[in-house]
């Protein structure tokens, strides 16, 4: 296949400071190149024609995975997605991410693709944004003006849209620790292994000492303009003992009220709603089972 993007200027900064300077200089004209697994194909199709490419692959100090405060996890924005499967800290501190990673495209893509790239790209069909929302991750953003931290809930603002400013660089993803008696699950339905899902769901739940729901988060992907939290369904479960009936009812609410999926050539809105209901039931069931065992 011929690769033929439109002309662009290409920079290879070596430090965050150089990146921030370039971003300040070029602003909206510039695109950051991380793993390139989404950007390069869209450039080759000439769907994206950025005037400036700032390649982050030579920037030092962004690829780490290290323990965060009190059981959490810090992921450098340029850490490759493949780390999520093999780095022991994920198994220990962010097992939901580890469980999700095999669903993210194919190993070759995860070898190149980065955590920061997928999150900043904010594809509504991508797994990582939904999982970040379910885990209440926080993102560190830097610009020449300074640094700020933003919760995942405020970060994803629409289709391929985030709260980042054009001169900002995502540097770190902070995954907070899960409380005791927590459980988690991720499932998706994709046409072929590694495809973008027709629908997917992530759940993170915490039980209290009486086996009642202390906290539940249920997030869908591929059913809206971004990761979609099932707020109504979650409210129904609050304080309840999550038995089969309660889970089924919550899944019903999530699919009927919390989401408003669209139709495309792969799945109708009605089919997506159906899948969302099935997946919600399955991930809640599994997450609560894990919480009870924890």
């Amino acid at each position, binding site marked *: *296949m*011929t690769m*033929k*993007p*439109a*002309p662009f200027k290409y920079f290879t900064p070596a430090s965050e400071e150089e990146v921030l300077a370039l971003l300040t200089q070029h602003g909206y004209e510039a695109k950051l190149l991380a793993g390139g697994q989404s950007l390069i*194909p869209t450039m080759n*199709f*000439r769907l994206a024609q950025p005037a400036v490419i700032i390649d982050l692959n030579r920037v030092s100090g962004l690829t780490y995975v290290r323990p965060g405060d009190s059981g959490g996890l810090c992921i450098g924005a340029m850490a490759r997605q493949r780390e999520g499967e093999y780095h022991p800290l994920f198994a220990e501190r962010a097992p939901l991410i580890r469980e999700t990673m095999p669903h993210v495209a194919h190993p070759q893509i995860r070898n190149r693709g980065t955590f920061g790239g997928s999150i900043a790209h904010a594809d509504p069909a991508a797994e990582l944004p939904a999982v970040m929302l379910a885990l209440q991750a926080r993102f560190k953003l830097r610009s020449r003006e300074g640094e700020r931290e933003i919760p995942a809930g405020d970060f994803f603002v629409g289709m391929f849209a985030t709260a980042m400013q054009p001169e900002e660089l995502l540097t770190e993803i902070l995954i907070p620790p899960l409380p005791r008696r927590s459980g988690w699950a991720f499932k998706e*339905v994709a*046409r*072929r*292994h*590694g*495809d*973008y899902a*027709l629908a997917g769901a992530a759940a993170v739940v915490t039980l209290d000492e009486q086996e009642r729901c202390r906290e539940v988060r249920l997030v869908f992907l591929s059913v809206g303009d971004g990761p979609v939290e099932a707020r109504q369904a979650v409210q129904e479960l609050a304080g309840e003992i999550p038995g*089969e009936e309660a*889970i*089924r009812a919550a899944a019903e609410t999530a699919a009927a009220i919390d989401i408003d999926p669209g139709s495309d*050539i*792969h*799945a*109708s809105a*009605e*089919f997506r709603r*159906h*899948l969302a*209901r*099935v997946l919600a*039931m*399955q991930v809640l*069931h*599994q997450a609560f089972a894990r919480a009870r065992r924890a």
Partner: protein
Amino acid sequence: MGTTYIGQPVLRNEDERLLTGQALFTDDVHLPGMLHVAFVRGEHAHGRILKVDASAARSRPGVIAVFTAEDLGSYWQPGPLLVPPPPIERLTFHQRTQVPLAKDKLRHYGEAVAAIVAESRYLAEDAIADVIVEVDPLDAVVDMEKALEPGAPLIHEGLSSNLAAHVIQEKGDYHSVFPGADVVIKKRLLYDRGTAAAMENRGVVAQWDAAGQQLTVWDTTQAPIPIRNGLARMLGLSESQVRVVAPFIGGGFGPKIMMFYPEEVLIPWIAMQLKRPVKWIEDRWENFFATTQERGQIHEAEIALTADGHILGVKDVFVHDTGAYDPYGLTVPINSQCTLLGPYNVPNYYSEFKAVFTNKPIVTPYRGAGRQHGVFVMERLLDFAAKELNIDRAEIRRRNYLSPGDFPHNHQIIYQDFAPLVYDSGNYAPALDKAMEMIGYEKFITEEQPRLRAEGKQAGIGIVSYVEGTGIGPYEGARVTVEASGKVCLATGVGTQGQGHFTAFAQVVAEQLGVEVKDVRVVTGDTREFNWGTGTFASRGAVVAGNACHAAARMVRNKILKLAGEILQASEEELILEGGRVYLRNAPQKAITLGDLAARANPLRGAVKPGSEPGLEATAYFGPERGCTASGVHALILEVDPLTMMVEIQRYVVVHDCGRVINPMILEGQIQGGVAQGIGNAFYEQLVFAPNGQLLNASFMDYLLPTASEVPNIENAHIETPSPLNPLGVKGAGEAGAIPTGALFAQAIENALREYDLEICEIPLSPNRLFDLLGERVKQNIEISISHE
């Protein structure tokens, strides 16, 4: 017949070159001073071209030239009709062939409007935006049935409707069946479009040597010799001035024999105009509409049977979508018409089709070439009949098989090769038995399926039969030469796209000449090496070219033995040819090597006998009187997730009869690849056109090819019923894997979901489509599912 090489799983001669990256593909051709072409392609499926202004593009730095239809002058001509309609009595055909660059009208999305030639492909692509194409959009004709309605937009002015062809073929009298019929089943069956999606897209490189007055063209074609002949005619050159090389090609599957593609006509002409080498490599996006496609048909079909399941007759009336033009004539719908009859005894048959123009990419054969549709219709009708009559699915097929004594069997209709559809040979029941045994048909139905069902698993089994008319004429040739090294050179005119020709043909020659397979160097696809032939298509390489190789090798074998007999002073009966030498049966020390014989046959000095020909060389041709009929049975076990409608294939069995097998390893590769395409066709691949004719999934992100995760390893077995129509006894195998998969899938899914009483009358399927077919009933599954977690 005892054989040394034929029938052996000989490792492939070409693999070392392919696997180490040494094989030449068209895009590997880099020439000094080479220019690159990008095409400006129309962005409407149907519209009148008001203006094409390329002036801005022409002045862009790096752009050498831009050609529009106007710039082509008299070189602008509609393409040739590749296959004229067969001599069928009740036949109407309207010829409308593609043009090099659209002039007055756009008739499908992506038709080329201008060719931009630049110093690099990047620069050529940049200049596309500079070309102004003003179009007055017209309503697009997308639905093939609506295309024939009065008042439908007219795609080709000068015709009174969008009808491209109308054909009726009949055997016996279908209407005579009704008094005896116990059951008549009538269904509407649909088959939608897909694309071959060869791994390598198309490409053309052309070089004009003004000093030598020679044109060389590297082309991803399945038919280099006809391309050479046509280019010479179009360009006003002698055929000897044009060399067309079809180097290694990453998959053909039919669309690479659509002669002539606009790019094939233009690139050589541009190279001559500019006197510089010119390259165009199709990108994947272009491949989705600039390369031909297949498979859109709608059938209204009817079958009449006795209560014990014997077929009395079949009536089938269908519409065939031929796309914007019909350069390949009627090959595809006639294949559908003929292949429907399958391995069955159908005494009465009425088949009528209308081919229609639509504002979609051109339809020409793609692996199966219409046979899928015929098999789908017949197999579905038999399934519905089996259910109605409460007869087992395998049994109803067996009851209707032609028996070994019925051959040759004349179906009394005309096939794609213009000859009556006569099956040369076949033996169908053993293949069915073998497939049932391999997949464990009885045990699955009586034991495994009920057990899985009790576990909440919706597993289903399918079994279908089909025949494939293969190995059609007209002819191919081969030249075999023993060289002074003792090695053998074999040249043939067909192109090669991964079929293993470098090995299978070498096996045929090595068998006759007593040399190692690796010592036969095969040259294919280069018009400088062999002057005559048609191409690789219709599962005919092994049959037609293979038998030409065999004939030439036999002639050389005779020359070897004659010369060796003279030298060793022995009669030919006393001689043994093996291990690269000839020796006396009773005195093996009296021997001469093939190399020495080749040298003796080509003396540098001295006198030769009057009338003698130099060298150990022969050229032979083979043209079968008609095609030979391969056949097979496919069986499948799959599981449907009752909540998500996702399908997983558990097992896939193919029992195939393509006559004598030359190389079972290569054959199994062909079957595996064909089944993969069949699975894609059945459950993953579908070209989705918007009402305005835009293709909505022109990339591999949205056009779903099955991958290694979706395609199981096929379990193979072979039945060998040699063809009496050629000395090797071989039949074609190239398309077999892809043909019955849709019918098989439909049957197995129905079986897996049988409590829903589903009727599947369409291909391709998808989870969403199954969800729609099941409707509200899927949702009830949720209630029971959680207890299985």
